[in-house]
């Protein structure tokens, strides 16, 4: 920990690495819930990933996760109106998860060189 204080890069590396792991895992879980059509849990995962994405400043990903959160809550994109058809919500979730994945891939590609495991 003192190490981290003295070595912010190491800390950042560890955080980013953790984030990659976490996001990987989260996306897998999302797929599972999508299979089960478990919108509620998708929303929770969206919120979860949103938090860490925001912490790292990955705003695109954060926005996608927020959408996902809303869709999972059977709301529209902005979270204002209800979506009555759960299938619509599921489709939206699926779409958004894919989008988030792409964005995550981007981030990974950008960040990986900088935070390559030593």
């Amino acid at each position: 920990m003192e190490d981290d204080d003295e070595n912010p890069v190491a800390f950042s590396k560890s955080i980013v690495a953790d984030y990659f792991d976490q996001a990987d895992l989260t996306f897998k879980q999302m797929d599972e819930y999508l299979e089960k059509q478990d919108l509620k849990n998708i929303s929770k995962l969206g919120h979860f990933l949103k938090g860490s994405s925001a912490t790292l400043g990955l705003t695109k990903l954060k926005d996608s996760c927020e959408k996902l959160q809303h869709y999972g809550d059977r709301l529209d994109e902005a979270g204002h109106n209800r979506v009555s058809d759960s299938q619509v919500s599921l489709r939206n979730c699926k779409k958004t998860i894919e989008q988030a994945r792409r964005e995550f891939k981007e981030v990974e590609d950008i960040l990986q060189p900088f935070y390559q495991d030593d």
Partner: protein
Amino acid sequence: MAEFQHRLRTKLFRRFSTQADPTSAPTEPQQSPHRQQQHHHSLPSSTPPPLLIPSPSSAKHPKSSLATITTAPSTPPSAPPAPPAPPAPNPPTKHPLTTLASPPTPSPSATGFPSASLSPAVKFALQAPTPTPPVRPPSNPRKQSLVHPSDTRVINALLDESTLTKNMLHRKVWVRRAGGTSTQIQVLEDDLVDDAKDAILRKFANSLGRTYDAPDLLLRISPTANAPTERLLAPDEPLCQTLDHYFPAGQTLDDALTIDVPARRTPRASPRVHAVAAAPAPYYYNYDDTRPHESGTDYFPPMPMPAPGPPPAVSPGILTSTSHDSRHSHATHPYPHPHHPERAMSVLTTGQLPALPSPGSRRHRRPNHPRQHTSSPTAISNVQPQPQQPAMPRPTTRPRLDSVGSVDKPVQPLVPPALPTPPVPVPAVEPAPVTKVVPERPPAGGKRRRGKVGGTHSGGSGEGMLGALTISPLLDTSVPPINVLIVEDNMINMKLLEQFIRRLKVRWQTAVNGREAVEKWRKGGFHLVLMDIQLPIMSGLEATKEIRRLERVNRIGAFSTAPTPVQQVREGAGSDEAGDGDALEDVKRLFKSPVIIVALTASNLQSDRHEALAAGCNDFLTKPVNFVWFERKVKEWGCMQALIDFDGWRNWKDFAQQNGLKDASAGDGKAKDARESAAIIFLLSPHGHGQVKSARPDPARLPRRRAKSALRNP
């Protein structure tokens, strides 16, 4: 001749003695325009010869003639015998007085009753006293016009031109304030504009004289054919000459000089106006928020003084209002003060931009939520931060001002130096000697006892960090020595928060869900909880509610002395029924005050915040958390808790002594340290010795005495 004069005087006296005292007439604002051509000669004289001046005014119009004969002697009988004065039985073609009155310049019209120049306003003004049309036939000569007895010298001078000097002559000049009624001031023939300003201030003694000095006034002369530009009169201009130049035919009422006054020199902000203007919705706290600022404006004008904007003449409202009541004047002030944005921002940015310390921002949102079930710190924080608000962001300077805080906060940092314990929060490093040392030594502060009681989780519970005692030098009170519980399920965020809290060098623990948070809290000793809202198993809101419930049930904080609210709450809310497992261990020692819960809200939605506050959170931080805000919150709430926990710190000393600590010497040493540090703090705190009260003999008394004597003999 003399007899004729006497008869005439008597006649005049009889005729006008029933009228208002003519000598007061010149000061009346409602004046006949016909008088403007008169030159009043009021020089003192021992030989006032009433002089008959032919006048076109008809004697058949008494009221009109009153206007003309304003200088009629009020006490003719007492006047000494007049020297022979030339009665003018016929209207002379050349008016002697008028000629004399303006020797240097073309004379104002001798015959001048410029009826053509009478404005409708004047006509209106004349309607009240008399139906007489303002235009009078100049062909109707009249002989009753008089010269005031005090002008005898002038008359004498007329008779003997060699003795005549200009400054013997008075002259009346029309002036008016913008939008106001014209009035006349009396000036000497050779007075400068500067002197006229003095006269103006005498005339407007109330409305202008109280606020302005003569040099502040500006006189504007309106354009005429002779000088087509309107301009300000320079102070060193000879007024009469200028007037004569501008108005060769004589200055009429309409030609009155306009008196301008500069923008107020020390405009006082009207708090009500600001409050309303700044905040579209007038919150109840606005007045309080602005109060310190308002008082400040007495000394520091809120806006740069010579605001170039408002030329006062443009808006008559200013002139009439400024001088009377500053509040009202500002209420009607058409020019908003330029420092509005500052306040507007302070309201509008509440809680969203880091412009304000958080107690303020929190307060802004709070009123919507009656908070029955939060206990004392909340209540305190609702009230206290107000005066402290400015000081909140820099608590380092505060301890000296607040005695309790000064005793408490710096003292606690002082104690740790006795310990060689560095802050070692994370077990990964595993500093074995440290973890052993810490539980043995009761840490400073009431909550430190948790180290003994809950010593089981000191070693390697995973995130239980013991012994991270703050070792900060005295008065380097960056963050008070508090114990923080971080509740966050997301490991990424948790890592970041851990990093943050490590930098602050306070003790901390973590919990990954609401249930765990509650369990950790039950062990006691936490001052501050940073609570994520969305948590698995038990959400942050639920955990918060549970903690608040347990606080109520166990009468922590305010409820310990107020049983009634507890009963009420119990009756009101069934969930508050104390269950079997609700009793907290060692409540008195471990829970000095309700814990402060700062919600970590993912969204910046107002509703989320309201929900959090309603659940019993004291504050919130929006995620992603940045370090500046994180530090602020921990600091300010930590300071608050450190203040509240002063008793805990003192009790701890008793506790330590009573229980005969294992290493009593160390305990004594620490107690001694504490006393000394308290003494130092007292020295630094001007009010310190008045605040600490203790029934039993306690160590704090000693330093108090010491401090007092030290204060007496610096």
